[in-house]
């Protein structure tokens, strides 16, 4: 029977095609298939009946569990953090292809030390690491290489890598090979966790997960989770690091613990000083009043009026007054009133009129002239007049005046002396108040400065506290012991390349590098070039660490930038002569 030929067959509607699309099913099938493949691989190894060492058997189990855990993780549609699976190997376990260990601390004594914890396997535990990271181990979390539950004490060995010094000291490879493209991992933090019972490695129960709440100093959420496959010598991508996103979702928004008070209340001392300062102006005012009163209380000294001699030829009025009837005019007894030249209304005819009333009142120049108001029925005339004495009256008045003036001068001198004394006393008191005010103000300023310093110190302290608290918790869900890393791949520097020659500063000694590390400034990023030529991006800032025969040499970012800018391959390095015993010392030496 030949092949059937259909002409103009009806096409399948899109709806029908789409109804068969099921990506979830595809992934499930893929996982199932992968698990079966992993199992068959394990069975294949069993059937070979070869003699495997305990380590190889363990590795097989781990491989199986790795597949299981990876695929289990992939099916999880919950928002939980993905589990992380690693191959448990010892630090110095070589890769298949190389005799060189994957994890190779360049100077063994600097290696990041493990902290050991003892955990009752059947009870589980929550361990608090010295960095405040938390290791949460559920009950019955461990199995032996046969897959059987472990009871009793299990030793957990744990260490963390936080900075380039830790990475260099730990000898952890940070190169990431993805589909043949090499990059370096910039880490937000890395953990290495292992378990042992009686010296034998144990494994994490496939149904359990150890959770590590890692305190990371890198707060970006642009990181992925990787595990180090020490068999393959490469990092294995696990998932995006969603720890921070989940934290943001689940945790109420935290307010800053740094409290800056915009209105700082006065201290008791400040209040007391301010009270004293505020009391001074009223005191000064009161003193002024007292002073004024005292001045006013001094005997008044009136200048005696000098008698005026009548001028011949000037028009004058004589007042015919009954002094008994008008005693107030006694002062003008025997006086004549000379008409001032300023009176424009005066005419000699006025003297011919017999006025019915004549009133003398104070004139424009007090004590010198007077108003003379003359009235006759409706007519009124006002003249400025000057009292004057004539003849013996004048002489007598002059003598009297001279005597009074002498008394006046004495009294005036005394008053001036008294006034001066009172003024000096007043000014001295005022000065004392001003000085007191200045002293108190200065004290107030000092107190303010002291309080501001105190506040600044408090703020600094709070900032320091905050800074130490400015960490984020990254969740590592560990399904197998080994090294887990929250990081992101960064392209290797490519813009420039050189074959460096390291020369010890101030000498002509060349250093043959075993390892050359380019450390990106202000990042947790270390490019390890080993013995290969250096590549770099001239626009970026790096420092350099060279290790040669256990000795450490460094080149600071400034010197290195100069070399890179000048494309000078002779790089001056300084030998670290200070004793360094661990990664903390290395961190100090590298200026990180």
């Amino acid at each position, binding site marked *: 029977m030949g092949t059937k030929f259909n002409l103009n067959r009806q096409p399948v509607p899109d709806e029908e095609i789409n109804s*068969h699309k099921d990506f979830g099913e595809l992934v499930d099938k893929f996982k199932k298939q992968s698990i079966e493949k992993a199992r068959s691989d394990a069975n294949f190894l069993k059937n070979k009946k070869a003699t495997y060492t305990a380590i190889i058997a363990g590795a097989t189990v781990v491989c199986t569990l790795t597949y299981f855990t990876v695929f289990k993780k992939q099916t999880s549609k919950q928002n939980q953090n993905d589990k992380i699976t690693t191959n448990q190997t010892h630090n110095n376990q070589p890769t298949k292809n190389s005799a060189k260990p994957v994890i190779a601390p360049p100077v063994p004594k600097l290696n990041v030390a493990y902290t050991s914890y003892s955990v009752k396997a059947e009870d589980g535990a929550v361990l608090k690491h010295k960095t405040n990271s938390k290791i949460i181990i559920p009950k019955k979390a461990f199995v032996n290489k046969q897959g059987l539950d472990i009871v009793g004490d299990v030793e957990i060995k744990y260490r963390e890598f936080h900075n380039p010094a830790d990475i260099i000291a730990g000898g952890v490879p940070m190169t990431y090979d993805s589909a043949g493209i090499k990059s370096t991992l910039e880490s937000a933090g890395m953990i290495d966790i292992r378990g042992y019972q009686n010296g034998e490695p144990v494994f994490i129960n496939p149904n359990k997960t150890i959770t590590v709440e890692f305190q990371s100093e890198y707060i970006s959420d642009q990181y992925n989770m990787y595990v180090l496959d020490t068999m393959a010598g490469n990092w294995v991508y696990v998932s995006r690091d969603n720890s921070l996103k989940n934290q943001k979702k689940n945790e109420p928004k935290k307010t800053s613990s740094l409290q800056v008070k915009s209105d700082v209340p006065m201290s008791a001392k400040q209040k007391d000083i301010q009270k004293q300062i505020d009391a001074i102006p009223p005191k000064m005012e009161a003193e002024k009043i007292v002073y004024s009163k005292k001045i006013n209380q001094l005997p008044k000294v009136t200048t005696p009026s000098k008698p005026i001699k009548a001028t011949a030829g000037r028009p004058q009025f004589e007042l015919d007054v009954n002094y008994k009837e008008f005693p107030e005019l006694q002062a003008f007894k025997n006086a004549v009133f000379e008409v001032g030249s300023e009176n424009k209304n005066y005419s000699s005819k006025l003297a011919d009129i017999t006025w019915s009333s004549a009133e003398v009142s104070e004139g424009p120049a007090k004590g010198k002239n007077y108003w003379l108001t003359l009235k006759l029925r409706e007519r009124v005339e006002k003249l400025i007049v000057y009292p004057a004495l004539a003849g013996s009256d004048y002489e007598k008045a002059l003598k009297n005046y001279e005597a009074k003036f002498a008394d006046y001068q004495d009294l005036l001198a005394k008053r001036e002396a008294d006034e001066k004394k009172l003024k000096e006393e007043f000014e001295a008191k005022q000065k004392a108040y001003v000085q007191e005010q200045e002293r108190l103000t200065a004290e107030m300023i000092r107190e303010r400065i002291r309080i501001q310093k105190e506040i600044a110190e408090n703020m600094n302290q709070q900032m320091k506290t905050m800074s130490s608290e400015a960490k984020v918790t990254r969740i590592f869900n560990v399904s197998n012991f080994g090294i887990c890393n929250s990081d992101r791949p960064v392209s290797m520097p490519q813009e420039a390349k050189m074959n460096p020659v390291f020369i010890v500063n101030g000498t002509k000694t060349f250093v043959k590098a075993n390892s050359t590390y380019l450390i990106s400034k202000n990042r947790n990023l270390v490019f390890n070039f080993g013995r290969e030529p250096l590549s770099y991006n001239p626009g970026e800032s790096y420092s350099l660490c060279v290790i040669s025969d256990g000795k450490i040499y460094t080149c600071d970012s400034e010197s290195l930038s100069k070399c890179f800018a000048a494309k000078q391959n002779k790089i001056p390095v300084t030998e670290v002569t200070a004793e360094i015993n661990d990664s903390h010392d290395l961190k100090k030496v590298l200026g990180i």
Partner: protein
Amino acid sequence: MVLGYKPTMLLNAVNMEFSPRYHHTADMLLDEQMIIEAAKQNPEHFGPLYDKYYKQIFGYVYQRMDCKDTAFDLTAQVFLKALTNIEKYEYKGVPFASWLYRIAHSEVMQLFRTKKNLRTVNADISDLRHICEEVEEEYMEQYKSVLMTVIKDLPEDELQLIELRFFEKRPFKEIAEILNLTETNSKVKLYRILDRVKKTLTKTSTNNGN
């Protein structure tokens, strides 16, 4: 009257619209490449590729058979194989679809090796007209059955070329990718097939006294 056939006409394919699905801009290829890399790390990231190419792959499979269920099953199988082997996928500057078609081609051929009766040829009358135009022969009703017979009796590799070029309207570059040939080789092979088709049609025309 049948005129001399010019193989260069194959390059122009007069009156035939080719599917633009194969054509990707550099940005599209880059985007696709990123998804592939992500999918290599995590199979969950394969979703966009599955969505993008499901209909095309189903179309390819169903083009060659009658049974829809088998076509759907086989399509699922194609994607499972793709996901399983995605780590081996290497970007060659062409859309990811080419790789999927090759898997589909391989799966379909494997199925037909065991179940030959499932193989069918599916075309529209307009496709047959295009073949006639390509060989510079005016389409006549009596050519329909002749063409159908000639085509369904072609060896599988030649039938594939006709299907891909005339029934699925694919550019030679894509045909070459799917069949793992060079572009020139596909053209030459197709020319030879069309030459034979032309001779058959000429013979039919002569027998009918035209």
